[in-house]
């Protein structure tokens, strides 16, 4: 429904003249597209303006890269600027010398404060701390009950009492002190920023509890209003940070950029699901990918989860990399993939696919899959396991059995062999012929020398798609590799394809060779 920024820039890429530098006219065009993409992502208008100006400044002095198209270069600049704005100085949480450290959560109704309070408490508990939850939302029916249930699930005590929110909050902090807790997380009622009375109430809560950290909880699907709300809360409470919730949806999350841009406080945590464990530190690069609409891996994985047999798929991926992937396996996988629906349609969902690959994906005739399938089915088990035994007469038999020609069978076998080699090469972490970006890039680094499926937890948990997107970007960008296999990808642009493959220079391995996953709970 909404075009990704990459789509938009690809469209005008032809018109971005290739000169020594990105000139103003080029930039203006590109920036218009950026503006639209960001607005569609719900970034607030004022923030979009200042942001595009920063991008302009970043771009206008850059010399046009030889390996990136102007469009790609602009995307890169936007991405970098996004990461910088979203990131910046991370919040370093320091704990009070005289416990408890008091944490206050505030925000609009329905933003996720109560669930987030419990998640925060659990997060700290898992770090060995001893939090107390304070149920100071006396407005919403059964809010206190909700927190109690969550507290129980998290194994964290919940303090509640009758009265008014201000006195309850104060009493809660006092209780935390009394029973020797080092953290006190206060949940408050949702309130509108323009509700003077309730804003005054939360100000008073803040006064009596003297929080060390005040976090604004923001729903990732918030639209243009994010700025007005955040500004008002910031003026009232002097926020220390922001927590973005419901990132497990597909809202692009521009509100995060808006709030950060306007309030200037770091986004500290990201909430990525309804379960208490769906909570992690915020990753600016993943958010940047999301805002730019790079990749819909989550949908893909969900779909896959629903339809594919996970064990089969996992095993196959592992075997693929060890070079033990056979035609039998391939047939099995084909069945799995078919369940996902149109192969071309699925390919489009993979992030970072270059326009060429996506066009090619469009050209995949799903009936072709039937023919490939038929050919493999016409083989005996032995032939599938060991295709080298397939001589001329067998080929003829297979061709006849599947209603294809011997040339088709030849081609299938040849290409499959090539792919096998390539996959094995991936597994060994080496550079691959014609696909330098794949071997030398992130994937190669990840796989360096492993024999089994690597720990890809650095690619993120349920709520992230950034690293994976970048990964696919590398894979997708190497259409030159496909060229080597004789695939005419993107009619009439072989040189462009060739130029792309030199991007990473072919030999560059990721620094360090391995990617250490972030600490998993």
């Amino acid at each position, binding site marked *: *429904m909404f075009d990704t920024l990459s789509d938009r820039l690809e469209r005008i890429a032809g018109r971005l003249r290739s000169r020594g530098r990105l000139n103003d006219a080029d930039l203006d065009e590109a920036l218009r597209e950026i503006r639209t993409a960001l607005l569609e992502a*719900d970034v607030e*208008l004022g923030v979009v303006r200042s942001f595009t100006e920063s991008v302009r400044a970043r771009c206008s002095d850059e010399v046009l890269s030889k390996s990136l198209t102007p469009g790609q270069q602009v995307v890169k600049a936007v991405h970098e600027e996004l990461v910088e704005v979203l990131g910046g100085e991370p919040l370093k949480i320091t704990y009070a010398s005289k416990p408890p450290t008091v944490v206050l959560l505030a925000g*609009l*109704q*329905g933003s*996720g404060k109560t669930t987030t309070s419990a998640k925060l408490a659990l997060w700290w508990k898992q770090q060995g701390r001893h939090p107390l939850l304070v149920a100071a939302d006396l*407005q*919403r029916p059964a*809010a206190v009950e*909700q*927190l109690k*249930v969550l507290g129980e*699930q998290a194994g964290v005590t919940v303090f509640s009492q009758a009265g008014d929110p201000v006195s309850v909050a104060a009493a809660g902090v006092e209780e935390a002190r009394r029973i020797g807790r080092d953290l006190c997380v206060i949940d408050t009622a949702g309130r*509108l*920023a*323009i509700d003077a009375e309730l804003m005054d109430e939360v100000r008073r809560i803040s006064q009596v509890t003297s929080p060390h950290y005040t976090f604004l909880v923001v729903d990732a*699907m*918030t*639209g*243009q209003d994010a700025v007005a*709300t955040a500004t008002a809360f910031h003026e009232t409470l002097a926020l220390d940070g922001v927590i973005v919730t419901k990132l*497990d*949806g597909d*809202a*692009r999350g*521009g509100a995060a950029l808006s709030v950060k841009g306007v309030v200037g406080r770091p986004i500290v945590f990201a909430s990525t699901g*309804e*379960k208490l*464990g*769906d909570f992690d530190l915020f990753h600016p690069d993943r958010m940047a990918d999301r805002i730019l609409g790079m990749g819909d*891996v989550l949908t893909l994985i*969900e779909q896959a*989860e*629903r339809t594919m047999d*996970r064990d089969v798929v996992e095993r*196959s*991926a*592992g075997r693929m990399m060890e070079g033990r992937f056979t035609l039998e396996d*391939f047939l099995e996988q084909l069945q799995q*993939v078919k369940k996902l629906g149109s192969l071309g349609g699925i390919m489009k969902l993979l992030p970072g696919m270059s326009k060429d690959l996506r066009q090619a*994906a469009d050209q*995949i005739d799903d009936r*072709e899959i039937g*023919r*490939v399938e038929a050919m493999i089915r016409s083989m005996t088990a032995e032939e599938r396991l060991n295709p080298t035994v397939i001589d001329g007469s067998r080929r003829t038999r297979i061709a006849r059995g599947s209603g294809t020609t011997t040339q*088709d069978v030849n*081609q299938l076998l040849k*290409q499959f062999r090539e*792919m096998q080699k390539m*996959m094995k090469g991936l597994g060994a972490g080496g550079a691959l012929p014609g696909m330098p970006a794949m071997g030398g890039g992130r994937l190669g680094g990840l796989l360096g020398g492993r024999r089994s*499926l*690597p720990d890809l937890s650095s690619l*993120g*948990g*349920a709520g992230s798609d950034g690293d*994976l997107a970048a990964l696919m970007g590398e894979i997708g960008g190497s259409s030159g590799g*496909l060229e080597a296999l004789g*695939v*005419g990808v993107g009619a009439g642009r072989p040189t462009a394809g060739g130029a792309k493959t030199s991007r990473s220079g072919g030999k560059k391995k990721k620094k360090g060779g391995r990617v250490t996953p972030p600490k998993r709970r």
Partner: protein
Amino acid sequence: MTAVLIIVSVLLLVLVVGAAYATVTRARRRTFEEEAEETAAAGRGGARTAVKEAPPPVAAPEEAPPEAAPAPEEAAPPTGPPRLAERLGKTRGLIAGYLGKVRSRGSVDAATWDDLEEALLRADVGVATTQALLEDLRSRVVSRELSGPDEVLLALRGDLVALLSEPGERHHEHLAVPADLAEEAALDEGEGEVHHHLHHGETTGRELRFDDEPGVTNVWLFVGVNGVGKTTTIGKVARQQVADGRSVLLAAGDTFRAAAGEQLARWGDRVGAEIVRGAEGGDPSAIVFDAVQRASARGNDLVLADTAGRLHTKVNLIEELKKIRRVAERPPGRVTEVLLVLDAVTGQNGLVQAQQFTEAVGVTGVVLTKLDGTAKGGVVVAIQRELGLPVKLVGLGEGPDDLVPFDPEEFVDALIG
């Protein structure tokens, strides 16, 4: 040639998906197990179950008697419904500013369009709809049909009202809906089947549908993502229906969220409606089914069914919702409204939500909540324009009376001042 592409695609796909999948699902499974352990330890069976079993046979929820309120705790009769205009007065400031500028300039120039664009975008109307609206106005200025900022503003207002109108609704200014705006086909982008799609012009109207047929139990299903205000809205709707003399039964179909049943029960007490609840973690379909049975047996006119908030991206939860609707539809039940509750603060994702939920369970109308805040809720323009889905109700606060019918003119006045 394509064979290669297929091979490449499949292998890449499997590799990528399989690997990411392994990580993701392992993480999820781990959390699920942790959760299951904790809740088991706490003596509850509260972990969320995916729709993995076959639908259970007609099972009565564990608590047999519904929790009837002998008398509502707050016996206060409903006060008059708040008018949209009053509540929105204080938020007009920002956008009215742009339009004031437009008027004051005295002529229509580039700055006019900039200001108008800004006003619309800030109201979450969205890029596509904004562009369509402004292009139309621009062409009418060029053709001299409109001259001067006042006429442009009037035309804009008229266009917006027309876009939000249901066929047959009368308004003060009878401006024809510009052809290209009205003809927008909705989901013809080849994105798959839409089962319950409403085309512009074939909408169900703004009234809440209630079938008076004997032997039929009307069910109004409330759906939406997390945190939008479904439960609160049900409380308000129940209040109004009770005031209109209907007998209402609430179905606590949110069996996932901690204390959700409790929350709805409190609303039931407040507004004078009985409730059917089940155990947390139970099957929501069973509860809805039981509510329909009970309503039929006891002669309740209407079942208002709450459901758990769910993101449309979660396939298994959407499947669960589909099942809830199917079950609710079993005679004597008849689902006469599927109301998508949408938070006014939502940006463009609102359109995606509307599309996805409509595709899944056939949404009949939107309830736009929290419009008493600073958010304008402009995304409903796109929702009506592209999906033909009308806003039926507007929520304006957390109290039982804070619900009004949607009026396009009032809404547009508040939208663009």
